[in-house]
């Protein structure tokens, strides 16, 4: 945990130094005509609150990306420290027909971001999915549990260091009772 | 032949009654009760009281015991009970004494008043003189004893109202979400549902 906190602080320091274009107080870039914001995990709730007040009324998607084998990506704003795990949140503004995407550098070993449940309860399942498949912790989530895989599954299969291949049938007397 | 039927029915009635007492499981007890009621219905037929026999089955077996079962299943008390426990000490011997004395009293009274079991079937009894037994029964109830019948009906109605008042319990979310009256408007027909943006 301490490592994560340290890295978070590091990110904050970096963003303070950041001199590029900002929007809602956080660095902003553009990817194929799509607006991408880059808040730090600690800034996430604040940014999303601002966005929500600004008419972004729906959280369309929450997912995560594991950049283990692709560390040197170029599309981050200069000065932002890339981390292994990134949480991607898509919001939509119905009035203006605009989308915005937030890419949060969640950390390397114990990726942690605050849960958006209190702002958008619709993110509950998506955050559970991100935990299930990537092991990203969402602090303050009301039901932080696996959603797609069995409760007693070990590992997070969409991480890049997890095998793709065939795993024989697993049986457990506990699951699947009626 | 009638004697044979009588003996068989008596055996059914008695074994059923005994079963009600002995059965551990309330559902089994209720089933034994049905058995008893059936036996009695056949006994009624033997006495040519066919209407009574049918009503016995329709009302008692068809409605009342079903309600018993309904309650038993709904409340989930359908588990076998341990009969070894006596909530009131000495209740069993006491029951035997009181029960047998009441039985003795009734039998004595009956034997004195009608001078022994007659075995007369109802087709020749007072109720059935002239006309079918349904008609006579109706006549007896709704001509001769109308006041008593109505009084009983009133009593039962009061009992039902009382039971509902006592048992009604308002807690938690009730029925489906508030059904607004407007929902039944014609507006919700799909033809009118299109909203051109």
């Amino acid at each position, binding site marked *: 945990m301490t490592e994560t906190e340290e890295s978070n602080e590091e990110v904050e320091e970096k963003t303070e130094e950041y001199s590029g274009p900002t929007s809602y107080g956080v660095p902003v870039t553009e*990817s*194929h005509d*799509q607006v991408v914001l880059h808040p730090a995990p600690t800034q996430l709730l604040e940014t999303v609150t601002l966005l929500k007040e600004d*008419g972004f*009324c729906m*959280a*369309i*998607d929450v*997912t995560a*990306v594991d950049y283990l*084998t*692709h560390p040197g*990506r*170029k*599309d981050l704003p200069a000065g932002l420290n890339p981390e292994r795990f990134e949480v*991607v949140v*898509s919001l939509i503004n*119905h009035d203006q*027909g605009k*989308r915005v995407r937030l*890419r949060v550098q969640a950390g390397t070993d114990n990726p942690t971001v605050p849960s958006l*449940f209190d702002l*958008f*309860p*619709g993110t*509950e*399942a*998506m955050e559970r*999915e991100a935990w299930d*498949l990537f092991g990203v912790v969402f602090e303050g989530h*009301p*039901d932080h549990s*696996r*959603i*797609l*895989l*069995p*409760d007693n599954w070990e590992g997070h299969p*969409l991480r890049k260091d997890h095998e*793709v291949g065939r795993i024989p049938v697993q049986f457990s007397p*506990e699951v699947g009772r009626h | 032949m009638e004697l044979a039927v009588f003996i068989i029915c008596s055996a059914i009635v008695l074994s059923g009654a005994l079963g009600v007492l002995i059965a551990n499981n309330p559902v089994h007890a209720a089933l034994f009760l049905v058995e008893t009621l059936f036996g009695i219905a056949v006994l009624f037929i033997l006495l040519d009281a066919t209407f009574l026999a049918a009503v016995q089955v329709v009302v008692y077996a068809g409605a009342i015991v079903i309600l018993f079962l309904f309650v038993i299943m709904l409340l*989930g008390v359908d588990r076998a009970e341990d009969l070894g426990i006596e909530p009131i000490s000495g209740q069993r011997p006491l029951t035997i004494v009181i029960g047998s004395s009441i039985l003795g009293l009734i039998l004595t009274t009956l034997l004195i008043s009608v001078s022994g079991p007659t075995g007369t079937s109802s087709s020749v009894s007072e109720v059935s003189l002239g006309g079918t037994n349904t008609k006579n029964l109706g006549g007896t109830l709704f001509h001769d004893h109308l006041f008593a019948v109505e009084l009983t009906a009133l009593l039962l109605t009061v009992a039902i109202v009382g039971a509902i008042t006592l048992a009604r319990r308002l807690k*938690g*979310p*009730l*029925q*489906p*979400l508030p*059904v*607004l009256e407007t*929902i*039944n408007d014609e*507006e*919700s027909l*799909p033809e009118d*549902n*299109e*909203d*051109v*943006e």
Partner: protein
Amino acid sequence: MTNGKELLLGEPERVFRREESPVLRLNEEEANAAIDDTDALDDDHRMILNMGPSHPSTHGVLRLMLEMEGETILRSKPVIGYLHTGMEKTAEGLSYLQGATNVTRMDYAAPLFSELAFSLTVEKLLNIDVPPRATWIRMLMCELNRVSSHLLFQATNGMDLGAVSMMIYGWREREEVLRFFEKVTGLRMNHNYIRPGGVAADLPDGWREDVKKLLEIIPPRLEEYDILQTGQPIFRERLQGVGVMNPAEALALSATGPILRSTGYAWDLRRHMPYLAYDEVDFDVVVGTYGDCFDRFAIRLNEIRESLKIIEQILELMPEGDYRIQNKKVTPPPRARIDESMEALIHHFKIFTEGFHVPEGEVYVAVESPRGELGCYIVSDGGPNPYRMHIRGPSFVNLQTLPHLMEGGLIADGVAVISSVDPIMGEVDR
């Protein structure tokens, strides 16, 4: 947001609750303990009932954990993952050309939409524009697919309410659309027809007549559905006022598609953020009024009519030209060229073995599938396979509305609600 607008949308308070929420937040062990704990049952007459995952009305393998009092549903929790296929992991091992094969198996009732979302995303990453004919073919096929998907809904919805004939009728009409699909794509479902760069093949000869025939067959059958269902008192009784949701709740729960529109909130990506050529055709966005199951049913029924309207216009507006982009790097050469040209052979070989490289970057593109917003998020590291491919399945998100819609209803209402949300488990579990 102004106050007036909030009033219009309603109060979303219910969905924000952590405690006393309609969502049953129990895990497996706690639920099993509650099931075994018979004393607890006696105390407050509540019981935990498991519905599924092989229950006839749970549309495949959805499992619901219901907390019931008698037959009234108090809280519930959709338990999913029984069809988890690991498609997002598989996608990382497939090239961009093969990717459509993978995503098409997600929403198996409307496979073309997943292909479309995937292809549009890849095209955006590649910065290419497909020829107009490809765009219009895509629109034609997608709208037909929307028709077949909604017909399937009509069938299953009828079945879930006990109208057995509706099941057969819905399938009968769907079969007509599938025949056309088979003619065009070679398959009845899981077509892999829309690919990055265009579509797999041009429309076959006589497609216009086939589509016209469909346009003739389906509308009168929809009238029959109206007679059998819409005007049916029992049917209306079963659906009206059941599973009500207001627009604010739907927005908060990120519900899209017919669920959002049923609350009276007009939001359709085809109109409000047009893609393909939807800004060139005329159609209506169907919205409901009360946000109940009946509205969701009626919206789907009328969206079939709207789709047919669009298809009619496509028949007139369909341009001539290429059905896929003429870019050697992305599209394989025609079969005849391979025999003549060494270069074509090499291109063909490269595309089908290694695949084409896509510039580094990440992008999210969404389309309006029959179930709501279907989005595709792809991260490319410059290689021939997507570094990460994520599909935002509308069913997956919409499923969160179930506990809120079912709260306080009877089991039978629960069945109607599940049916009206119309989840496709392949897309939920991916």
